[in-house]
């Protein structure tokens, strides 16, 4: 075979269409998770209409986007949700949707089990009710368990059980794995990002350095039987890169379309600095993906700053852009959770400087359930948790 650049380097230069496209259908949500990446809660009156969503699906089909990761908010609370799923599947655009399970009845589960083109991801952030509900709200564990039970009973094999790893649940990885196995599901672990409301709780919820190392070892022992959405490449510095492409995909293989049609470089970067355009403008999504100045910049070689001289740089690539941005760290420096500990020093240096950027968009309900141990967002500063 002809000598070619490694795939990750090819991907850095961008593809004709994203591999992993997240589409948040609505900012409305029945829950108020303390770490919500999109600060969801209330519907936005400017959200795309059914016809606009269908036009976007037509465009994704023309671009040969294989599947979309639909999220929110809680996407299933949109009255036209199932209609849009059917519309996408009919055009051979696969759908994987993330849900807290609120609408997954036995009847819905039976319908979903019958399609190769629809995959379901149930969010669960604790293997026990106590740990989960402290983050996702009272009753959310039972809702997720009911949904997983319905999917398992309907014979839906291999749906995803998706867990954001936190300080509180990092000790439950074996329990999560067992829960997934009992339901015929596949476990997916992702990284807690300081995005959206997650910025307010990140300091209290993100795993400790010891937990990160244990997670790294646990993931390596599992190989590709546990999905990660490629979200732990910043842990490569502990030894070995976890399975996956291990690169920041923002604007290169990944992007986010939000409920009002704004396109961001990734789901963890809902901020004006990472907004590339809007699908409603001339040229639609294809033009944003192929021509936006922001994405062109992201597809250029990135300055690595002080990290480039580090022995771990080949593996971690300096970590997650969004994690750095929302913790007030320079983008060409270490990740706040750098495996070699450079993040802690950088965070200490950043303290006392300008406050970290705030997410540009907030649809949080003004009066939501307030968990006992974790404070709601303070008005201005991020991470001011006691």
């Amino acid at each position, binding site marked *: *075979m*002809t000598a*070619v*650049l490694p*795939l990750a380097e*090819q991907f850095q*230069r961008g*593809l*004709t*269409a994203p*591999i992993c496209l997240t589409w948040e259908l609505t900012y409305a949500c029945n829950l108020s998770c303390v770490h919500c990446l999109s600060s969801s809660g209330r519907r936005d009156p400017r959200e795309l209409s059914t016809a606009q969503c269908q036009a976007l699906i037509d465009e994704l089909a023309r671009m*040969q986007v*294989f*599947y979309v990761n639909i999220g929110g908010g809680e996407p299933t609370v949109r009255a036209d949700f199932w209609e849009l799923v059917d519309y996408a599947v009919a055009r*051979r655009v*696969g759908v*994987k949707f993330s849900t807290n399970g609120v609408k997954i009845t036995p009847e819905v589960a039976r319908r979903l089990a019958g399609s*190769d*083109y629809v*995959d379901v991801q149930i969010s669960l952030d604790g293997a026990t009710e106590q740990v989960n509900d402290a983050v996702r709200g009272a009753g959310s564990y039972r809702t997720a368990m009911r949904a997983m039970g319905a999917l398992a009973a309907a014979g839906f094999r*291999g749906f995803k059980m998706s867990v954001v790893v936190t300080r509180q649940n990092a000790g439950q990885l074996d329990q999560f794995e067992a829960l997934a196995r009992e339901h015929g599901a596949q476990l997916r672990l992702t990284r807690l990002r300081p995005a959206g409301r997650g910025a307010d709780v990140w300091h209290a919820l993100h795993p400790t350095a010891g937990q990160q190392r244990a997670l790294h070892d646990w993931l390596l022992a599992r190989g*590709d039987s546990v999905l990660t959405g490629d979200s732990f490449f910043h842990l490569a510095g502990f030894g070995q890169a976890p399975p*996956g*492409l291990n690169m920041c995909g923002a604007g290169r293989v990944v992007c986010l379309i939000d409920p009002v049609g704004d396109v961001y470089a990734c789901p963890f970067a809902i901020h004006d600095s990472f907004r590339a355009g809007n699908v409603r403008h001339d040229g639609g999504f294809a033009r944003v993906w192929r021509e936006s100045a922001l994405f062109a910049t992201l597809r250029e070689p990135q300055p690595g700053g002080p990290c480039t001289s580090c022995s771990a740089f080949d593996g971690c690539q300096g970590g997650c852009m969004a994690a750095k941005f929302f913790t007030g760290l320079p983008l060409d420096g270490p990740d706040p959770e750098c495996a070699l500990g450079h993040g802690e020093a950088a965070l200490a240096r950043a303290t006392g400087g300008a406050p970290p950027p705030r997410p540009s968009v907030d649809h949080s309900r003004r009066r939501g359930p307030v968990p006992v141990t974790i404070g709601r967002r303070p008005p201005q500063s991020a991470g001011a948790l006691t």
Partner: protein
Amino acid sequence: MSTEAVPPAAFDLDRPWCLDERVAVRPEPFGALLYHFGTRRLSFLKDPRMLTVVRALAEHPSARSACESAGVTGPALQAYQGALATLARSEMIKERAVP
């Protein structure tokens, strides 16, 4: 994502093959992306000529003949056989019934 290598000998070049009907193919500058809706896995063709081979499979009596039609012959054949073996193992391509 499936990128692990499979020994070339594990693939029978003299049988007729075709893409699985649940696989979508998207050409890219480096070759192509493949997505299997049943297994929900992605694969990559790291060379545009491999895309020509894969697309030709269904119209040829054997994989060897599909490779030849794409100009893949001689020593180069073994690398393509290896890539086809990987695709077969990940169910992206399958043997088709002899007419």
